[in-house]
């Protein structure tokens, strides 16, 4: 079964973070078992890990399921399709989530993004795939429509 990524897990850093957290979680559970804690002491988990577990219906108390999740996360770290998106300003979580929802629905459910900052684009985004760059910025929009700009200027003149 393929791993389902929650909306909150958007970037490669989030993926690495949740992978590391899950591994630490398993180590701490293992240590508690070895200490014969009763009941077993489960460490606190982040919202991202909780969302990932919920999305994939994984019981974090199940060691086998956790290990499977860890393997899937490692595999995803290696081959998850990545998009680099440059924004004119630092994007809010809401914007990122909306974009992630659309991208995972329309492009690839495993997709993750890297966020960049490029103030000169003013508005819109610049999307970079492994082999191509899609400029959806206002600058590009203006460049494509420069004939209309010229007509507007000529009318003004």
């Amino acid at each position, binding site marked *: 079964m393929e791993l389902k990524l929650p909306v909150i897990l958007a970037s490669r850093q989030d993926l690495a973070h949740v992978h590391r957290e899950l591994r630490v979680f398993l180590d701490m559970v293992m240590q508690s078992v070895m200490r014969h804690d009763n009941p077993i002491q489960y460490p606190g988990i982040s919202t991202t890990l909780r969302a990932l577990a919920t999305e994939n219906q994984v019981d974090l108390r199940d060691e086998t399921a956790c290990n499977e999740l860890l393997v899937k996360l490692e595999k995803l770290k290696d*081959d998850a399709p990545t998009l680099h998106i440059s924004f004119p300003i630092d994007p809010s979580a809401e914007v990122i989530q909306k974009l992630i929802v659309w991208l995972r629905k329309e492009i690839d459910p495993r997709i993750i993004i890297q966020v960049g900052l490029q103030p000169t684009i003013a508005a819109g985004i610049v999307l970079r795939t492994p082999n191509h760059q899609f400029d959806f910025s206002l600058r590009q929009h203006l460049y494509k429509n420069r004939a209309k700009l010229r007509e507007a200027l000529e009318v003004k003149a």
Partner: protein
Amino acid sequence: MTGGQIAIVAGLLAVATAVFLIALFRLRKPVENTGNNMEKTLTDAAEKDAERIFNDEFREELRNRGRLHFEKIIGENAMFLQQDLRLTTSQLNDYMKEEIKRVLQEEFSKYEESISNAKDLALDSIQKTQEVIEQQRLVLEKQLNDQAATEKARLIDHFEKNMADIVNHYILAAIGNEIDLSVQLDYIFQYLEENKQAIIEDIRSGT
């Protein structure tokens, strides 16, 4: 007494001596035939007479007469010479005036002619220069207009090429930190939708 007067007096004395000797020679001729004694007698008498006639007083008188005569001649000649000199000077002045006038008139006429020629040449030269300048002006004007048109076209072309950047720059300066990405999402999703297939293909080929 001047040296010239002395020379004149000496010359007169020499003339008188010669006249005397000639007279003596003529007187002696008839007695040649009478013999040497007769001749000697006459010669002695003549010498004595000459000595008696041309004594110091007579010589002084002759000398004075010669001096006066010489002074008279010198005065007359000086007067004539002065008259001649005045006349010559007057004529020379007239001649010089005429010559100078003639030469000056010739020179002035030549000068006027030269001036006239130079003026004509200068006018021709100025006219040609003006024509050349006018031609150059027209050529330069044309070049300037062409360059201005080219520069204008280049600026317009440059402006049009960079118009998007310029407008973008002003929009960026105008909106500054007021950029709200959430209101741009529709616009972004529209572009994403338009390029969805290309993105999918690129991701598949890249992974």
